[in-house]
């Protein structure tokens, strides 16, 4: 199993390179990655020299008018030493085939890859791997993993993306209330429903608006079992501080290689005070009447 992180800041590389098996980077069709094409190229070289895996992410849906941008981006990607391409829009499959990268594709189903049949379907097309949805219970996750051992990736730490819109909710709202607020660094913005107290981070950029979980998802306790079946475990670093990222990497490394007991008090404290198990123990199939 590989332990990967999404690298969203170039300067963080040196701090994490000895703690991870690889990095995921992005620019077009991804959000929250503050990297230039030059930095991505440089990171691919660094990864090669440091014997780290190097992955590119395309998290977004791609409109018809942006097809040429997608092809241009694959022109760029194909010249790098890429170990895999995470994608969400099915258009990527045809373009990747043109560039001979089909067998490096990893389908990130985001909210819609939720069962074993669908997982097997994608894997049987010849893709390298898939990333299953984050809204699954532990029972569902292990069921899917056991049906497809060592073929499936999963987010194991970080904020979870909960919604994605082409609409610019923040830009439009500021216009509506006649207020000027810069969205250049919109990672500091969050929303709270008027009758609840969840502070959910929100971004609004050229791809639209995305809302993330108020909680930081973690799987420390479950990881010893999950890692037996997982192809890759992903730490998504969006909205995390550098210290949190490094701490998470250290924790997962210790659980993986030192077989540290998940019951270790420091990890238990983190679970109770800082993080959440998300939906692992919480089904979300209630109806309106319940």
């Amino acid at each position, binding site marked *: 199993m590989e332990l990967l992180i999404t690298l969203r800041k170039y300067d963080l590389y040196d701090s994490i390179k000895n703690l991870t098996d690889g990095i995921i980077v992005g620019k077009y069709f991804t959000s929250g990655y503050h990297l230039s094409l030059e930095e991505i190229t440089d990171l691919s070289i660094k990864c090669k020299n440091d014997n780290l895996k190097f992955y590119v992410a395309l998290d977004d849906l791609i409109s018809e*008018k942006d097809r040429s941008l997608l092809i241009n981006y694959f022109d760029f990607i194909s010249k790098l030493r890429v170990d895999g391409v995470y994608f969400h829009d099915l258009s990527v499959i045809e373009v990747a085939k043109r560039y001979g990268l089909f067998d490096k594709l990893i389908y990130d189903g985001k909210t819609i890859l*939720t069962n074993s049949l669908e997982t097997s*379907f994608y894997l049987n097309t010849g893709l390298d791997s898939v990333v299953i949805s984050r809204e699954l219970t532990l029972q*569902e996750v292990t069921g899917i993993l056991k049906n497809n051992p060592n073929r499936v990736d999963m987010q194991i730490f970080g904020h979870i993306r909960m919604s994605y819109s082409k609409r610019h909710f923040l830009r439009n709202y500021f216009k509506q209330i006649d207020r000027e607020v810069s969205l250049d660094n919109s990672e500091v913005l969050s929303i709270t429903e008027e009758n609840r107290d969840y502070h959910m981070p929100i971004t609004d950029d050229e791809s639209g608006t995305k809302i993330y979980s108020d909680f930081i998802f973690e799987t420390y306790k479950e990881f010893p079992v999950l890692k037996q079946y997982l192809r890759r475990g992903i730490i998504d670093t969006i909205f995390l501080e550098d210290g949190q990222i490094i701490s998470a990497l250290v924790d997962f490394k210790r659980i993986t290689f030192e077989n540290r007991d998940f019951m270790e008090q420091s990890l238990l404290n983190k679970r109770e005070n800082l993080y959440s198990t998300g939906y692992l123990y919480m089904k979300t199939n209630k109806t309106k009447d319940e």
Partner: protein
Amino acid sequence: MSKIELLAPAKDLAKAKIAIRYGADAVYIGGKRFSLRSRASNFDYEDIKELCDFASLYNAKVYVTVNMIFHDEDFDGIIEYLKKLESFNVTGVIISTISLIPLIKKVAPKLEAHMSTQLSTVNSLAVRQLKEFGADRVVLGRECSIQEIEMISRNVNVPLEVFIHGGMCSNYSGRCVLSNRMTLRDANRGGCAHSCRWKYHLYENDTEISNPECLLSMSSKDLRASAYVEKMIKANVASLKIEGRMKSEYYIAQVVRTYRKMIDEIYEKGHLDDERIKYYDEELDKAENRPSDDGFLSGDCDNTKHLFGVNGAGVTHDYVAYVHKYDSNRNIAYIEVKNIFNNEDTLEAFGPDLDNTLFKAKIMFDEDWNLVSLANKPTQRLYLRVPFEMKEGCMIRKVSKK
């Protein structure tokens, strides 16, 4: 070239029949299981079979939504369900789980597999990929502009379905699980709590920057694509879809009838001028209950296409009665009251074969033939003098003073 399909929603058998009578070429419905709109899915096997038999009389088609995003626990019974639908002569199923395609082709090969808007397919390469997976039709995401729809249509050889009317997810369909977090109801399994329609405080770090008088809302106006129907026909779109499986029979009748007439006029005359589009918009106004716009069809959605602190309104006509029978010897309609009206109100009748016709409610009787001046009991049956021929299934609305 075959004529474009007008596809209407229906919550139950009665509404489905109304949609077909009022001009829908096809209806889409949800069964008791596997559908994304669980509260709008009232069709058991018997109803589905009856609807298919009814639809065949009008040469109309029936599609069934099997569009929940399945978890492993949800598949139980799906094979039997698909086989049943095929045996009833359902034309196709609308799905979001791509892996159902090979299953459908194997166990119910006469069923078409239509890819739901839940997949948010917004480019031609993705459409082609779905075709390669075996899709028989693709419903495009509502984020496409009309130019993009035209481009996609030119670049694919699979029938496309496009939404033209009704409520819209403010997020990409299928990509929103806000409801899961806030209510433990899975938006992708029929439990959507419409969290996007709620109000939110906005913070920059710990400081609130929203306006307390106008909190942030993601709520979108409804879609109305009347001005784009002609372009969609010319773009060779296969099906125009109306949203609204929770809507009333009156809404279904009025919206279906309006688009039916509009489509027929475009095919007859080749073009609709602005005046005719305005006429049809006024007809749609009679059924609307939320402000509407053209969504992404004209390009980007700015702040004017959001609902900030608006709670609907805009209906100019109240639906007041459904016609069960008409006695042409006495010019008396036997009606079911839907909303309050009195014998001084101006009413407008319409039906599958009846153009809008105004009349006064002057004379009406209860079921014991006592004269009444006020109809104010929902489901009450009355006899109403109507000075022109009507048929079962016609509807009557009150013309309000704007």
